[in-house]
């Protein structure tokens, strides 16, 4: 792709100090991998932090040398794109607990010499945000021009504006929710059960015995993937098309949608760590900033100083527009600077990854106004 940044390099940093987690444990010597795009200006005022979602990582944009596939948000991050790297210095870390180079369940626990596996502490969105603030300190960024994310990434952007009101000027909260619904948690639980019931899960210690619960992870991903797409998107993409043009009266993958899901699940299970997946779903389930405020979201937003843009998508049923409106209405009640857009897009929850014109224009205007 000619409009993608090229020869992207991955940076790795070991953070100074320890992170005190909400669960009560501490972690020291945290490694974080991250990528940057664009150039930091002399007063470090043009930096944008990108927060990734459940299965995301630090490779948000551009392409690596000798690779063709761009980062997961390349449609929106790059020269003259919605998040314009000619103007902004964009940073995207792989969060702690991840499995792409940052400290996580598959990292070696220096105390035992073995991988953490199931002993890795449960992380929360607030822990992530505090960890990202440590990265900000290391990079010399006192105030982010913006913190932006979609889905679980949007929850981090929202948490940033609550936890560090002086360190963030704008927050882009895209396709997010103020907390998970029972239905959302139910899907996560099915995914977790798929993983922990795989015989190769070995109580989470599969790495110690050279195994990986790929079947469970594949199934978890297939379930997740269905919730990322809309009924319309699936109908348009697959309909009831048969791979071989006729019914075979058996249980092999006959419909296109079956083989698509199986393929996606297989690819994912080769590249993702099962303990990280379990952890990520827990992080989602636990997110509820209103919990400490008797369930009143507007009170959780009291300290916010940032300008916020909330964006939802018409066909997103995982975190529907109604869920975004809960955030917006609480922000209105708390008398905060908020704008809201509901974008017509056929791609379901995944819509936040696509460069819809109104979405791009709205986000770019928000970042540059």
């Amino acid at each position: 792709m000619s409009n993608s940044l090229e020869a992207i390099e991955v940076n790795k940093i070991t953070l100074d100090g320890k992170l005190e987690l909400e669960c009560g444990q501490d972690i020291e010597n945290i490694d974080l991998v991250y990528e940057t795009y664009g150039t930091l200006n002399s007063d470090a005022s043009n930096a944008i932090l990108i927060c990734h979602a459940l299965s995301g990582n630090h490779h948000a944009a551009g392409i690596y040398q000798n690779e063709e596939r761009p980062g997961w948000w390349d449609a929106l991050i790059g020269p003259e794109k919605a998040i314009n790297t000619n103007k902004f210095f964009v940073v995207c870390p792989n969060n702690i607990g991840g499995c792409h180079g940052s400290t996580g369940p598959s990292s070696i626990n220096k105390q035992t010499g073995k991988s953490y596996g199931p002993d890795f502490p449960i992380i929360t969105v607030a822990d992530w945000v505090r960890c990202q603030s440590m990265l900000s300190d290391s990079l010399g960024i006192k105030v982010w021009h913006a913190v932006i994310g979609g889905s679980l990434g949007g929850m981090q952007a929202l948490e940033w504006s609550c936890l560090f009101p002086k360190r963030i000027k704008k927050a882009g909260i895209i396709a997010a929710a103020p907390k998970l619904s029972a239905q959302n948690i139910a899907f996560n639980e099915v995914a977790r059960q798929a993983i922990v019931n795989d015989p190769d899960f070995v109580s989470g210690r599969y790495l110690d015995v050279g195994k990986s619960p790929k079947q469970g992870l594949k199934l978890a991903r297939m379930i997740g993937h269905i919730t990322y797409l809309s009924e319309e998107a699936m109908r348009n993409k697959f309909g009831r098309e048969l791979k071989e043009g006729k019914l075979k009266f058996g249980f092999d993958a006959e419909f296109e949608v079956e083989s698509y899901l199986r393929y996606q699940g297989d690819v994912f299970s080769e590249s993702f760590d099962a303990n990280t997946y379990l952890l990520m779903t827990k992080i989602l389930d636990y997110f509820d900033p209103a919990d400490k405020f008797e369930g009143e979201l507007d009170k959780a937003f009291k300290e916010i100083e940032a300008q916020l843009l909330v964006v939802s998508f018409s066909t997103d049923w995982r975190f529907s527009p109604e869920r975004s409106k809960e955030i917006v209405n609480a922000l209105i009640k708390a008398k905060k600077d908020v704008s809201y857009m509901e974008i017509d897009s056929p791609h379901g929850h995944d819509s936040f990854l696509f460069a819809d014109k109104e979405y791009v224009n709205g986000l770019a205007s928000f970042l540059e106004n």
Partner: protein
Amino acid sequence: MDALEVIKNWVKKDSEVLDLGCGKGEILKILSEELNTTSLGIEIDQENITLCIQSGLNVIQQNIDEGLSNFGDKSFDMVIMSQTIQVLKEPKKALLEVTRIGKECIVTIPNFGYWSTRVNLLISGKMPVTGSLPNAWHDTPNIHLCTIKDFELLCIECGINIIEKRFFDSSGIENSLTRLLPNLLGSTAMYKISK
């Protein structure tokens, strides 16, 4: 004075203003700049929303016809609804809602009792198409047109207090004639109301 001048007189400095159907945000931008208001716009058109965001305004995409229950009682000093009420499905409900949300409200309406509208209907026998109402009857967003008299009767019915009112001619200016015979010579009417 034109309508904007009157709005600037009616809105207090440093107040909180909600503009329902804020369009490109022209009014809110002027109020923010000149009167230091805290402004929020409601708009349905995404191109307009983007223009508002470009101007640094806060704007919420929301269909007024689907309700305004997300706004608290008397949560804004001034709610503006300019040339919007006639496009809504339920103008009466909307009027009650704006007076619930705003300590005061400014409502602007096109006057269907304006002389040229009356003459247009009388002579042609067809639904009037005029400068301020330029669409054919079957293709107009203006589904609930009323006259100045109708609007004031509705306010009485709803227990809404008309604090001030102004009338403008077809070029948008107030003059002695619009003051003398507003329902005949006023093309547009603007009310400051509360409940």
